[in-house]
């Protein structure tokens, strides 16, 4: 694995000015049968146009829920209880529902994981791809279809004109994912959230899809938020990374530096568990244990139960996300210790 973000377009100019998406102290509660639990706890990050930010974490760490709250698609059991999400010059959380719908597509857009269920099985794909144009640009059905065919060509669907009449089940998994991406980028959104866009695909197809996303990002100058559990994808494709654990951000910063010199024991544990990093012949280290249930998150540090560095202080005081230099931050009382190892 190449720890350096080789293809990242780290344009320093792009990092100045107002970010395309700025999430601040986003907090989401989940109403479960046994009570209310906090699924996302004061998560903050920002991403500029042309840049890629990765939300990295294990299943259930709150990364998908963060994405869904940004685009306003949370299930009824979940509720945003605090924070702000700035995009398109507005705090989208304070907008009315119609105002928010106006932003869905031209400003904020999302690609889901499983393209088979994310595409409507009873509509021809051409119609689904043309829908954003019909909703936001008021195009006629015919005009929208032309736009859809154009989009299909851009994302590399062979014979787009003929295939526009086909239904989702008539495409391969990779092609469906391309369609889904085409639909999400149709209106050249400022921010594209991609929720595990390649998890359901073969390895070779994964690479193609990631490249397609990259090409579209450059072409349309989008900010991309990549939600993933795949360290290799983060290393190769992202500029910045936000590592989440049990609904909290534990470490954030430029990928190159965070991965090169992790300042949180969780990030370190994740990186150590990658096979290429381990010594030959020795057992593969892994982060022992599993994430806490959301209803049983301890009062102190969220990671204390699995942390090799845990001490008394960790059980009492939750470490705040504090700057560790050069645009980085980590939520650990002993991040200095890690830096020196």
């Amino acid at each position: 694995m190449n720890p350096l973000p080789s293809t990242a377009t780290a344009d320093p100019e792009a990092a100045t000015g107002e970010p395309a998406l700025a999430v601040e102290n986003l907090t989401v509660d989940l109403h479960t049968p046994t009570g209310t639990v906090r699924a996302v706890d004061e998560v903050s990050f920002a991403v500029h146009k042309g840049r890629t930010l990765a939300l990295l974490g294990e299943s259930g760490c709150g990364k998908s829920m963060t994405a869904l709250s940004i685009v306003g698609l949370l299930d009824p059991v979940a509720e945003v209880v605090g924070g702000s999400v700035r995009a398109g010059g507005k705090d989208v959380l304070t907008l009315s529902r119609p105002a928010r719908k106006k932003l869905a597509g031209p400003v904020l857009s999302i690609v889901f994981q499983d393209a088979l269920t994310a595409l409507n099985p009873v509509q021809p794909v051409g119609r689904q791809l043309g829908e954003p144009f019909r909703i936001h640009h008021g195009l006629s059905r015919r005009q929208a279809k032309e736009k859809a065919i154009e989009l299909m060509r851009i994302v590399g669907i062979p014979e787009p004109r003929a295939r526009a009449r086909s239904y989702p089940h008539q495409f391969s998994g990779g092609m469906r994912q391309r369609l889904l991406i085409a639909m999400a980028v149709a209106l050249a959104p400022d921010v594209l959230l991609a929720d595990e866009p390649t998890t359901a695909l073969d390895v070779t197809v994964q690479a193609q899809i990631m490249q397609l996303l990259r090409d579209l990002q450059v072409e349309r100058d989008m900010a991309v938020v990549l939600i993933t559990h795949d360290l290799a994808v983060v290393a190769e494709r992202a500029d910045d990374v936000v590592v989440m654990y049990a609904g909290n951000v534990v470490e954030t910063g430029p990928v190159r530096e965070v991965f090169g010199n992790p300042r949180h024991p969780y990030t370190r544990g994740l990186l150590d568990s990658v096979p290429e990093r381990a010594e030959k012949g020795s057992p593969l280290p892994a982060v022992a244990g599993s994430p806490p249930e959301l209803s049983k998150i301890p009062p102190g540090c969220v990671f204390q139960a699995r942390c090799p560095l845990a001490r008394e202080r960790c059980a009492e005081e939750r470490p705040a996300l504090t700057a560790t230099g050069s645009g980085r931050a980590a939520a650990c009382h002993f991040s200095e210790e890690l830096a020196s190892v």
Partner: protein
Amino acid sequence: MTTFLRKRIVSSAIPLVVVVLGVFVLARLTGNPVDLYLPLSATPEQRAAFSAANGFDQPILVQLWDYLGQVVQLDFGESLRTGQSAGEMVLEAFPATLQLAAVTMLIAIVGAVLIGSLAAYRPNSLADRTSSFLSMTAASIPDFWFAIMGVLVFGVSLGILPTSGVVGGPEVWVLPIATLLIRPFGVLVQVVRGSMVAALSAPYVKVARSKGASEPRVVFGHALRNATMPVLTVAGDLTIGLVNGAVVVETIFGWPGIGKLMIDSILQRDFAVLQAAVLLTAVTIFVLNILIDVCYALLDARVRQAVPA
């Protein structure tokens, strides 16, 4: 599409054949068919003459052949009561029932889709719980009693609706249709709600919302189409079940349709007419089943392309 339809027609035809043969078996093999056709007061001479005239003394296979020939020609014999051809009587009564059923199902489907979708949009909300309770109740009320209550309240007490008959303005339709409507409506609301809840939680609905689609567009443009399949199946079954309701409604309101004809011919032991009515109903159901299959294929490309095993 044609292969699909051909296969469906063949499988829908099986019940039809069973009914045709079933009527024959019931009529000939369960005793003396003459008892079915002639009044109990008929003399032995009359019975013998009738038996010979209708070939009941022939071997059973010959009778079957004759019977099938008659069925194909829609010749079901003559009514004992009126002497009119049974087939003609049934065909005359048929449109009245068809009108009643068509209007009822139209209202039931449109209404159920609206109310069911509304309930499914906010599961467990007050609107949802209310509509669940009301639709459950509607599906559990005996239709004959509902009709009588309607007559009692609107016909007898308030005197604003006619209690029977078909002559007059649109008001003669109100009570028969309301009666026929309650059960299919109650059942359909529950089915629409169930499949809409499932459809609205599907990922493609999230995707549609992420495109900025308006809520009506999400509900009716994306979810409803996907929820149609189970609704269509149940609506088909309910339309078949409407025959049950039609018998009751037509009897109570004196609606001159097939249901009333059937009950009248039972009470007056007029087997020729009963047989004709039953067979025509079976044919109608056969046609209906094929129409439902066509709707399926039109609505879902996956059905169209899949060749059923």
